[in-house]
Every structure is written in C-alpha cells, then in structure tokens.
C-alpha cells in the first residue's frame, strides 16, 4: 500500500475574479521510504497539492475534491480534525520555504520543538523533551545546541533556523518529510549544506522525502523519482536519471534547456517563451500548448492521455507519443 495515494485531486480557490484552478486532476502515489521530487514553475500547483493533501488550506476559500486521498490508511477527505492533527507532524512532517517566518517570534526554539514532541507524545516529560530537542539540534549539525535552545527565532540566521525547522520536523520521527522549497530563501552557500543534510537524514532515518522545488539542480541531488508539473497538471513522471537523459515532454525539455549554464548561441540564457497560464481561465487541452514549439491543433482541444515509455516513465503529450 502506498504511503500517499492521491487520485484525481482538484484544488481551486474561489476569488473575486472567478474560480482559480490551482490543481486540476492530479493522481500520484508515494511509497514508504521513497524520495520524490516535484518540479514546476511558480503557480504550477506543486505546493498547493501537498498543502491540500494535509488539508492545510483554509476551506473556504479553497475547495478540495478528490476521488481518493489517502495517507497511510487514513482517508483524508473524511477524516475529522483530531485525526488530521494526529497525522500532521507525526506521519507527515513539513518544512517550508522561509525559515525566518516559520517560527513563532515570541517563543524560544526549545519551546517550539518541545511543544511538537509533547503534542504527539503527551506522556513525554518537559525535561525529557528538552533533552530530545537538544539531540535533534545536534543531529542537524547545530554545534552550540544547548545555547540555541534558549534563543528566540530572531537571534538565529536563516540557515540555522532552517536547520532548527528540520530538527523540529524530525522530532516525531515522521514516515515522510515534505520539503517545500527548503532552500529558496537561503544564501547559495548554505543551500548545498541544507540539501545534503536533508538527504543524509532521509537515508539515516529511512523516511520518505517529497522535495518541492523549481530548481532542477536540487532535484538531481536529492531524489530518486521526479514529477514535472505545469498548469495544475502532471506533465511527466520518471526516475531522476531518465528526466535528465531522456526527457519526453516538450515542457520538461524546455525546463532543462532553461537551467542556468545552458547558454544559447547568442550567449544568453534560454527561456521558455510566453508566460504561465492564467489559473482562472486555463487553456483548454494541454495547458502547455500556447507556449509549446511543437503544438498541434489537437493539443488545444483535448487533454493528452498518459503514454508509457519505460516501467516507471510516463508523460502526457499528444505530439511526442
């Protein structure tokens, strides 16, 4: 049984201008212990998918529907608040993009880690939880852990806070860690350290990892399998090496082309022409067709079906298939 099993997930937000369709019929499965990368540009629906999967979006304005949405054996769509709370942090932990705003500014780091531990294991005493918190900080390579416990968030740098957030996320031994752009807000020099730390902890603790990012470089270093998202849909899924060596979908290819380091013949960075689709009035058919260099009339009228190229490699494109 997969750890996360999503069938036909739709997420929209009711807004003044109309219904903003952030996720449009996504299906995906994540096995226990697996590491999966979710790649896509801003607005592709990659974060919203997992926020919705944990019911972390405010509903309304968010509207979440799914044919199936299971995490472990819990049916998320029908789970009550208590069941959802006991799942969050314990089975699935999340770390977020901006560590500077992720902690409550008026409590110490110790307080915020201890409260996480004691929420899921209420029988742990405060001093036991404190010892655990210190060990967790050491584990994420914060050397002066005993001091850092007593710090308030504003006293730590972004990199240190992101380490502390990882420590907090790991405090209840989650089966899977969802990292939502965990390095985007950090200095480039720190990014590699944090990624390496996440990867190393994932292996040591034998937990699953979902890495949400717009950066293909991050994906290459941390995950086994990749899902490419665009316009609220999955465009391609494949093992990480396949994505880089044998991309099928024109969007995947374009994304790889636009990685920095790939200069075109004028010595300029390659870009994908056009702009992301408007989520209120998404294009009919394949969401990428207005920007696709090989689009056919058919692409504008009907959504491409799934094509299989390898045992684990699928993509959704009329023209390539």
């Amino acid at each position, binding site marked *: 049984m997969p750890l996360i099993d999503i069938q036909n997930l739709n997420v929209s937000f009711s807004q003044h201008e109309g219904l903003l369709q952030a996720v449009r019929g996504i299906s995906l499965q994540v096995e226990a212990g697996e590491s999966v990368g979710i790649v896509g540009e801003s607005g592709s629906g990659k974060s919203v998918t997992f926020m919705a999967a*944990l019911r*972390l979006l405010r509903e309304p304005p968010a509207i979440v529907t799914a044919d199936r949405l299971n995490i472990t054996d819990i049916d998320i769509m029908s789970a009550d*608040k*208590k069941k959802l*709370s*006991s*799942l*969050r*942090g*314990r089975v699935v*932990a*999340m770390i*977020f993009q*901006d560590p500077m*705003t*992720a*902690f*409550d*500014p*008026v*409590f110490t780091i110790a307080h915020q880690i201890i*409260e*996480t531990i004691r*929420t*899921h294991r209420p029988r742990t005493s405060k001093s036991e939880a404190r010892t655990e918190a210190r060990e967790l900080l050491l584990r994420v390579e914060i050397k002066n852990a005993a001091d850092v416990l007593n*710090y*308030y968030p*504003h*006293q*730590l*740098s972004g990199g*240190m806070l992101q380490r502390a*957030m990882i420590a*907090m996320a790991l405090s*209840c031994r989650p089966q899977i860690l969802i990292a939502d752009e965990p390095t985007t807000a950090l200095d480039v020099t720190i990014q590699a350290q944090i990624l390496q730390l996440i990867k190393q902890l994932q292996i040591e603790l034998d937990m699953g990892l979902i890495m949400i990012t717009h950066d293909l470089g991050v994906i290459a270093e941390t995950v086994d399998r990749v899902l490419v998202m665009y316009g609220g849909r999955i465009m391609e899924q494949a093992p990480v090496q396949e994505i880089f060596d044998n991309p099928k979908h024109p969007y995947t290819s374009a994304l790889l082309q636009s990685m920095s380091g790939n200069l075109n013949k004028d010595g300029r960075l390659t870009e994908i022409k056009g702009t992301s689709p408007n989520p209120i009035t998404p294009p009919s058919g394949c969401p990428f067709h207005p920007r696709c260099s090989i689009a056919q009339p058919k692409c504008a009228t009907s959504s491409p079906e799934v094509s299989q190229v390898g045992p684990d490699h699928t993509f959704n494109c009329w023209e390539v298939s």
Partner: protein
Amino acid sequence: MIMYILRRLVSIMVTFLIVSVIIFLMMHAIPGGPFDAQDMPLSEAVRAKLMARLGLDQPLHIQYFKYMWGVLHLDFGVPYQSPGETVLQLLSRAWPPSLILGGLGMLIGVPTGILLGMAAALKRNTWIDYLASAVATLGLTIPVFVISMMLILVFAVWLGWLPASGWGEPKKWILPIIAYAAIPMATYARYTRSAMLDSLNKPFVTVLRAKGLSERRIIFQHVLRNSSIPMVTVFLPMFIGTATGSIFVEAMFRVPGLGAYFVTSIETRDYPLEMALILMITMAFSLAYLISDILYAWLNPRIRVGGTQE
C-alpha cells in the same frame, strides 16, 4: 534599559514643567478672576485682603514659582470653592467614585471587547464578524452622553429596573459602569480583531498546523500571545482616561466624581484645583505611557533579548 527608563523619566519631568507653565499662563489669561464683583459682591477692602492672602496680588511669575515650590512639597494649596480642606483632601474625596466606576467599566469593557474581537477574527466575514464590528463601531461613534441617555431612558424610565442616577448603593453604579465600558469595549474589539487577523495570516500559523497542534492551542497560545502586544500597551493609558472621570458620564448620572471638578474649577477660576487636576493627569498619562513602553519591550523578545547573536 535602565538608561532608557532614566531618560524617559527626565523627559517626563520636562513635559511636566512645560505643561505647568502653559496651564498656569492660560489659566490666568482667561478674563476674570475668582472674586469678581458680578459673582461675589464684596467690598473693595475685603477683596484686596483676600487677594493678598491668596497671593493673587503678586506678579505672575512669583505666583508660579510659589505654587510650584508647594507642588514639590506635595502641597497643592487650598481650593477656593471649598476652603475648609486642601486640594489633596478634595481630590482624595472625589476620586474614589471615578476610580471605581472607571475601573469597573474597564473590567467589563476590556474582556467583552477582547471576546468580541476574537469572535470577529475567527469567524471573519460571517454575520458574527459583521455584528461585532457594528457593535464596536457604534460604541466608538455614539457619544457617551447619548449612550448614557439611552440607558437611562430604557432601564430607568421605561423598564424601571434601575435608578436613573445618584451614588451610594451599588445598584446605582450599574448604568454608569455600562456607559463607561462602551469605549474600552469598542476599542478592544477593534484592536483584537485586527491584531488576531494579522497574526492568523502569519506563515508560522501554517507551520503550527503542519506540526499537528490543535486549533485551540494555536489560537489561545500562539495567536493570542502574538496579538496581545498592542492589546497590553493600550490598556494603561485607557485606564487613566476612564479612571480620571468622564465629565459626561458623571454629569448624566450625577456621580460625585472628579469629572465635575474639571468644569467647576475652570468656571470659578479655582486656580489651585485646576492646576492640581491637570498636573495630576499629565503625570498619570506620562507614567502610563512609560510603563506601557516598558511592557511592550518586555513582551516582545525582539526588543527584550536584543539583536542577532549568530
């Protein structure tokens, strides 16, 4: 921090002196005096003797320094309208009703306002929010004497449940306390609502949810604590405002509090009482703001603990 407090205390003393000069000059700039002929038919000789005894015949700057010298020794003089006691005795007699009514008004108004604001923030854009906002807006916009009048009309005249005015038995306190509570209630409802909405939209709230904390714990421990900073800092100045008596509420309910003396001391040119009242309020507000600022720093770790250490 100690340097900061000392600096603030010095600046309060300077403010105090400036206010005293301005008030003293304005008081004497108002035409007329305490013993004018149309109010008090006294003979010239008696009037001159009275003026001499009270020192009113001396030059203004001498009068000022004499008065302030007294103030330094906590001697605020004798009120002209009640020469049988000192100003301090009069104030300590008149203050309790204002303090009790103002204090109880805050005690009722502030928690009600906080609850109203919380309900509005947590149920935003529902009828609860609209109702709470409407109540808060009415509380702030309807003048307190209109509220007082409506309370008297409904509860004293029409329903006959409560006495319309007076002082003494606690039954008579109820209506003025409600009138006093209106402004703290409305102010707190608005502060709480906006502070809570502000905190609820912070990214750390999503992190707390993702950690598996119950909604109740998130609201009561984290959101409320983050919203409490502005709520705590407006408390003391507001308390001074209500506890020094509202001229209107006390006049409407005929409460023998401080409020009335603000009017009569100006009307009758009761210089010592007028000075004492205004200096007292200046000092109370200055100290209230100082304590609020210290509380603000103490509640906010970003100020209390200082800058980045890493």
